């Protein structure tokens, strides 16, 4: 791997030395995502058990005098907005995590980060039923961080180096353990069937403006922090030694990146539950389409994650109208094949 002095980002998992981000491609991807986003938002607002013409939308934004406007304002708008926020947060968290762990199979949902956040939130709500809003998000950060670090340590504790596949297996098992514990808590709490499924698969069915207010500050911190790290991440992608040689504090970048992963995925999960596979698949798709320069990769991931969750949520409402399949089910069905594809590409033959 000969490396010229120009900073050409080099994804560690592909051994292809080219990938020069072409501006034209990035523009195209951005435009397509934008179009999808606009169509999705309009679509997401217009469907539901009650058909509402979109001409009512402008009125519904600030005041809601009529029932239709009320539905738009209090049910559909928060739902669409939350889908956008959660998708963006999880996708950026996934891209960050893959960069920080130098591991293409790393993602908050694979590494137990999401399950850890869910477990702690459900535990907190079970112990203190009145708990809600901001404190639960802080607790989710704690759960996410502890779970993520434990999985890293566990996967690294075998003799030899941490292979991506081992890391993923350890993470998936830790996730299933945490999800089982969460289910036990839910049984003790005797919640309704809806909330059981919600905490187990994730979705934005029950979104309210309160959730969005709680999530917003953390989302802004996480996204701004992540975007501001893109130069460091580009250097990190060259490999530790190269990055160090170029004056990069690798440990600090890793630590900071992990912190933003925890903030983004913890916050998203605490309001939407564990929406599956977004953080894993979106960065891979975008990297394929638009190259791996983090300066453009991260914003595009945010947009693509939003689009994916939004459409998953829309799809979930079409399945059988009165009942809704949580968006997490839809993303799991989309994500599993992509996960298989990624796992197959791993050239790991030992044990």
């Amino acid at each position: 791997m000969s490396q010229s002095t120009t900073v050409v980002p080099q994804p560690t998992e592909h051994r292809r030395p080219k990938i020069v981000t072409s501006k034209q491609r990035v523009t195209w991807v951005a435009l397509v995502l934008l179009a999808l986003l606009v169509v999705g938002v309009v679509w997401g607002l217009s469907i539901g058990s009650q058909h509402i013409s979109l001409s009512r939308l402008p009125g519904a934004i600030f005041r809601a005098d009529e029932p239709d406007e009320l539905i738009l304002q209090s049910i559909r708008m928060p739902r669409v907005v939350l889908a956008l926020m959660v998708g963006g947060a999880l996708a950026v968290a996934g891209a960050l995590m893959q960069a920080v762990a130098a591991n293409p199979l790393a993602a908050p949902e694979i590494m137990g980060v999401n399950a850890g956040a869910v477990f702690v939130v459900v535990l907190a709500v079970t112990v203190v039923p009145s708990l809600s809003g901001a404190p639960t998000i802080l607790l989710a950060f704690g759960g996410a961080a502890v779970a993520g670090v434990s999985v890293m340590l566990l996967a690294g504790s075998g003799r030899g180096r941490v292979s991506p596949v081992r890391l993923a297996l350890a993470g998936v098992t830790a996730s299933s353990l945490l999800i089982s514990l969460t289910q036990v808590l839910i049984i003790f709490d005797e919640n309704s069937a809806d909330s059981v499924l919600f905490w187990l698969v994730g979705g934005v069915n029950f979104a309210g403006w309160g959730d969005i207010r709680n999530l917003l500050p953390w989302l802004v911190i996480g996204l701004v922090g992540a975007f501001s790290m893109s130069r460091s991440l580009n250097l990190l992608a060259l490999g530790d030694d190269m990055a160090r040689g170029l004056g990069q504090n690798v440990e600090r970048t890793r630590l900071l990146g992990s912190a933003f992963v925890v903030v983004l995925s913890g916050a998203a999960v605490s309001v939407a539950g564990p929406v599956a596979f977004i953080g894993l698949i979106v960065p891979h798709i975008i990297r394929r389409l638009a190259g791996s320069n983090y300066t453009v990769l991260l914003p595009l991931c945010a947009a693509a994650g939003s689009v994916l969750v939004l459409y998953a949520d829309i799809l979930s409402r079409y399945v059988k109208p009165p009942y809704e399949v949580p968006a997490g089910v839809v993303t799991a069905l989309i994500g599993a094949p992509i996960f298989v594809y990624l796992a197959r590409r791993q050239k790991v033959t030992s044990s």
Partner: protein
Amino acid sequence: MSTAIVAQHVRRTTLAQRYPHVLMGSLGVLAVVLSFYSLSVGATEVSMHDVFNALTGNTSNQAAQIVVDFQLPRVILAWLVGIALAVSGGVMQGVIRNPLAAPDVVGVTKGAGFAGMLLLLAIPGVPVLAVVPAAFVGGLLAAALVYLLAYRRGATPVRIALVGVAVSAAFEAGIRFLLVRNPLDVSAALIWLTGSLFGRSMSSVYEILPWVVVLVPLVLIWARKLDVLGLGDDLAAGLGEPVEKTRRLLLLFAVALASSAVAVSGTIGFIGLIAPHMARRVFGGRHLASLPSAALFGVLLMLFADMLGRGLAPPLEIPAGLVTAVIGGPYFLYLLVKTGK
């Protein structure tokens, strides 16, 4: 390399090596004692006296009635399901020569669960005896899918496990999808998602019984063939074993056993993974010893999981599958760390 993986787990403790029958016998006694105790545990506490009355046919009082109608089928099922899952896992690990193989790892449990549920929802009033074959087809499909997807110049253990995770996730999403389209009550939903013996009756026992009674002895008769396969393909073929044929047939038996368990109890995880491991650690790698002891460990684990689920916070029921996941998850992590080289 594959033989090395197996050999690594063939560790014999002196007691088990010298007196395997003594140790296995005491495990069996423990399982029987636990079964009796298990009969008395539940939402309504039943005295041991009533338990014995009920078992001897005197069901005059209400407590004895509860034992016969609700507790007894569950305990019998715990035995059958534990045996089926553990033997299935033991066979898979022997045939694939892979310590991470197990019905739930290669996707069989979730595939079988999905197929079983699909049948029950698609054809209401379907005879229960049809559920097991349907689950078998689902389990087989899932296993074939995992193998095909993991195959890339050979299928390495870890890649099989990883692809199994993804295929299981897809089938689990399918199960949730069916659950939402056809709202059942929460406890029924949790049975299909995590596995439980809650609310099972004698009819479930009759569903799984023929499969266990026929297949487990067959597998035990073939235990020596498993040992031969463990020597490696070349050596096994040299010894006159039709390797491919034997392997396929044994895998078919393993999938059938696991699917029959899933058809009656839902998707209980990790038993098929950890019971054979415990057996191999204690009794060594010879399948004639390790398979029956794996079955005993499976029974003990199932009894324990079901009992804990019933007795921890009555009248609430914690599905047995959750208990086994909480025990089995850390064990799997431990195995993963240990097999790391």
